[in-house]
């Protein structure tokens, strides 16, 4: 790292490129939140790399004044793995969407998370394919009517955070594009060493407008959003409601906010994290913030460590290497004379 990292402002992180998302797209809000967060992280622009796949959200790197790589559909995680292993000093951010990360690139997302590459993965979930004009996505709810599903989609959606936990992620968080808490979620993701998985509910104003309104709309936000804080009780609806463990059913239940049963958020509790990400929206709030965090050794440090250990005491000598094995010397051409 540079000894002195220049103090930056949000403006320093905006590139000179014109932003080309639809007016009103949730991506603008996420871009602003990221640009506002970067100065607080104390990182240098030249050490920061945004790597994306394909989709509306994947245009993101063009708008950041750092290094950036807009790759191919679904493969941002794979490209990012090579970049981080080649230079672990880089601060790597992966920008992806529900189709990019969970459909065409689902395999790479899974392996990046289980390997625990040190990076931030921001999954912009709008439950739709926007760039290809509105087909249903792997996170679309059953019955979603789109040009490719005129009678409604019939397949059950994937749950990004459940997928991440199932893949072995050590940091799982959720945010909302326009919510003021998003920068805090991003900061927590950045502070975590390892793969930080952040699902961002992002509104597609053109093809899937208000799909998250049942919990993001101002009128219901308090009653339907549970912002988790480590060491604090799981309370929502202005403290009038809370989550408790139903010891008979072995699941979560909603109780009064002043009940003794309300549990305290321990981000290291993986079992509770699984329950938090699976809560049905109809009868429960949506869990937001850092749902799970339990650091583990990172893939990049393990690779670099093994490379160093395996090289220790060995001096690379190309001439010796090519001369290895069982060799023989030809002194002169056998039948030269």
């Amino acid at each position, binding site marked *: 790292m540079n000894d002195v990292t220049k103090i930056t402002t949000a403006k320093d992180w905006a590139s000179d490129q014109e932003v080309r998302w639809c007016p009103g797209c949730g991506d603008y809000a996420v871009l602003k939140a990221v640009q506002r967060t970067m100065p607080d992280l104390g990182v240098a622009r030249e050490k920061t790399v945004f790597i994306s796949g394909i989709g509306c959200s994947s245009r993101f790197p063009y708008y950041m004044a750092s290094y950036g790589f807009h790759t191919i559909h679904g493969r941002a995680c794979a490209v990012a793995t090579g970049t981080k292993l080649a230079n672990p000093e880089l601060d790597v951010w992966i920008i992806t969407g529900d189709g990019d990360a969970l459909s065409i690139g689902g395999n790479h997302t899974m392996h990046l998370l289980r390997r625990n590459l040190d990076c931030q993965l921001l999954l912009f979930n709008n439950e739709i394919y926007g760039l290809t004009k509105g087909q249903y996505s792997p996170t679309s709810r059953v019955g979603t009517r789109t040009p490719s599903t005129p009678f409604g989609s019939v397949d059950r959606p994937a749950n990004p955070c459940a997928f991440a936990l199932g893949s072995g992620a050590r940091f799982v968080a959720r945010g909302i594009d326009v919510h003021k808490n998003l920068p805090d979620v991003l900061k927590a993701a950045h502070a975590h060493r390892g793969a930080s998985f952040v699902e961002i509910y992002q509104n597609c104003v053109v093809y899937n407008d208000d799909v998250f309104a049942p919990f993001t709309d101002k009128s219901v936000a308090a009653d339907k959003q549970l912002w988790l804080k480590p060491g604090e009780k799981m309370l929502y609806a202005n403290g009038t409601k809370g989550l408790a463990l139903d010891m008979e059913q072995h699941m979560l239940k909603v109780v009064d906010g002043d009940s003794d049963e309300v549990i305290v958020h321990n981000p290291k509790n993986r079992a509770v994290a699984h329950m938090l990400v699976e809560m049905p929206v109809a009868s429960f709030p949506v869990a937001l913030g850092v749902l799970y965090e339990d650091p583990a050794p990172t893939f990049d440090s393990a*690779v670099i460590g093994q490379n160093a250990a395996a090289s220790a005491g060995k001096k690379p000598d190309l001439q010796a290497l090519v001369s290895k094995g069982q060799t023989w010397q030809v002194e002169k051409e056998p039948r030269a004379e």
Partner: protein
Amino acid sequence: MASATHTITEEESQAHPMLDAMVVRFAGDSGDGMQLTGGQFTLSTALAGNDLATFPDFPAEIRAPQGTTFGVSAFQINFGSTAIETAGDQPDVLIAMNPAALKVNVNALREGGLIIVDEGEFSPRNLAKAGYDANPLEDGSLAKWNLVHFNISQLTLDAVKPFGLGNKEALRCKNMWTLGLALWMFDRERGPIIDWLKTKFAKAPELAEANIAALNAGHAYGETVEIGGQVHKHHIDAAPAEPGLYRTVTGAESLSLGLIAGAQLAGLPMFFGGYPITPASAILHHLSRLKEYGITTFQAEDEIAAICAAIGASYAGQLGVTSSSGPGIALKGEAMGLAIMTELPLVIVNSQRGGPSTGLPTKTEQSDLYQAVYGRNGDAPMPVIAARSPADAFDCAIEAVRIATRYMTPVMLLTDGYIANAAEPWKVPDMGGYEPFPVEFAEGSAMEPDNDQVMPYRRNADLARPWIKPGTPGPEHRIGGIEKQPGTGNIDYSPEAHAEMTRLRAAKVDGIAESIPEQEVCIGNWSGKLAVVGWGSTFGPIHQAVRRARMRGLDVSHIHIRHIAPMPRNMSVLLKGFERIIVPEMNTGQLKTVLRDQFLVDAKPLNKVSGHPFRIAEIEAAIEAALA
């Protein structure tokens, strides 16, 4: 010699090529250790100073049911006191460890050739498994060959008795007994093999001793027992070779070493992304042991991730390399386009096998030439280089790295299953003789001096763009797969930008022809009646066939193409100097199409798609027919 180090002398080209050479095939069950036996026999052959070429031929199944014909594994070696370029058309000696091995291989043997079999394995049950109605050792069906049989199984059991092994373990020493006999037959030293066994079984000394006892017993059997027939001591003189240090090398080994050498000459650490696939995995295995050379190996979750991670590493300033075989290369296609579009250096190795789809995983073919030259969406030009032999793969790998880094482009390096697995003597190169080509990363030079505009797509005289590593303060910029404006690299879909960038990408790759050698004629005149034009591992049989035809006075030349794309700049003139052109290929005519397309010449195909390399005689016959 199948290596690039030996030039054929006038005297050699006059000699009868098979006079001083011998082809031996070891064949047995997959579990009999035939590849190991062949490998050690190869080593002893090399140490005896013979030139050689080998052809390992094994089934795709790891352990096919014992005793069946589809579980037969064979290893053929051609060695001699003259230059050897192929594994041999027909074996002179077949050593068959069971009925199935005999059945599968015997018809390849030349008439009058020697068969040595382990009669201990010729039980009614094993005969039935191999599909024999009667015992071929007794029914006279092998009369046109010279048959020798004895109970190798029992002789091995007797030899290893003192070491108290179980019956199964004791019988595993059969291959060493056989090797011992073969060493006696060809007047070879046992010492290096005994040393090797001691190292191999360092943790189980009783196994080492048992194997050594079996080896010695096989040798002593030849020495003392009157076997008769052709089983007598053959001595084959050392082959002519330039003075120097030699070793044996397989294509997978030399290609790995060449990649390392290339990275060192470029002054770069190497990132190798791979996914297991036959017959390419050996490269991943070799490189993963050599971390002290600045190599990071990454076994990715799939072929796509392997190439994408390599691209990500190249983006970050390392030499990205990925390797696979045809089906895996197909999966990497889109990512190759990304490397072409973002103009990042990358080496893609294709160890070709029979296709399409899963095809013939363990058999060889050269049928991915179209895929290499054309197999991507859009106008996506990419340099293609093909290795001709195990030893040649070393220099080809260095050349691939040189082109990739100098021109900021992905490069396809073609090898095949035959080259990857086959071994040949290799004169150890003097690394001091290679000119380094150090990479310079761009810093401030990638920016316009007056307004600090970053110019990631400004081009040098080679039309290459600057390589700017993330981490460099100042020229922060964004790249991607979308069409871009020349110079700035900003997104630009305009007709002018796309037309100009398409032109530049093609002109850059075409321009590589300026830095590669002109095409040479390997043997024969630079113009005349007939040119036999080849690429890749058909080098050996073509070369021998042309040499033999020329000995009989035929006007024929051999042209071997290393640089498939772009072609050497004199290729058009050279080809047009010949009245006829034939192109032998282990595919249905792919180079032939490329030559016709680029040079409007009447190139005629000669194709073989059996999963086995050409025999010299097949090409010789085609030469005769073309000149008749």
